[in-house]
């Protein structure tokens, strides 16, 4: 699975993108976020405020974190957007 990080979430994790093998028991976005937090204090810090974390699956916004990850190739994590 390709994981991308943007803005201050990228700064906190210290990486812009990575390839990871997700443990088989991770089925949903929520499960993925919970697992990610356990990977180290930089990830825990990046995700410390769940209401400030936005998720895109294969370049589409995901607003329901119970959504399954089956078939997904790319997960992006970022703070609320400030474009325009």
């Amino acid at each position, binding site marked *: 699975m390709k994981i*991308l990080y*943007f*803005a*201050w979430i*990228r700064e906190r994790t210290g990486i812009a993108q990575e390839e990871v093998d997700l443990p088989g028991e991770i089925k949903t976005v929520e499960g993925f976020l919970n697992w990610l937090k356990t990977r180290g204090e930089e990830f825990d810090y990046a995700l410390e405020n769940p209401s400030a974390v936005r998720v*895109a699956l294969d*370049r*589409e*916004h995901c607003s329901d974190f119970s959504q399954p990850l089956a078939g997904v190739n790319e997960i*992006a994590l*970022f*703070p*609320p*957007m*400030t*474009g*325009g």
Partner: protein
Amino acid sequence: MPTSPKGPIVRIQSDDFDTAQILKRATRDRPNVGAVVTFTGLCRDEGGKLAALELEHYASMAEAEIKRIATRAYDHWPLDQLIVIHRYGKIAPGENIVLVIATSSHRQAAFEAASYLMDYLKTNAPFWKKEHHKDGTSDEWVEATDKDDKALERWKEI
């Protein structure tokens, strides 16, 4: 009579754009167009303290997401053309950040579509602004505001 464009035009670029030139092209040989709304978003200097804005973006998603937003507008209002240009990278005060041009036979569709586009770009286009300060204090990410989320409420039916 020129055929109508097939859908919105979306460009994501680091280079600046020339609003007048794009506008001229958008309305050339379009005798059915009676209304053009142009919105240009510029970089403010925040009372003189801002040296530059740095716009980070999720390149592969930005174009797709803005196309989704623009296509909803294009399908909803009777538009002739809908053009969106969004810049990324380092932008100095006074420079352009974003351009939306909506053309239509009548003004209401053009006004509303441009407004809809901007409201959704603010909250859904994967861009993040970072402020670089003139006085050398540490760079700061711009925070999203509730006001921007609330602005979407009027478009609930679309």
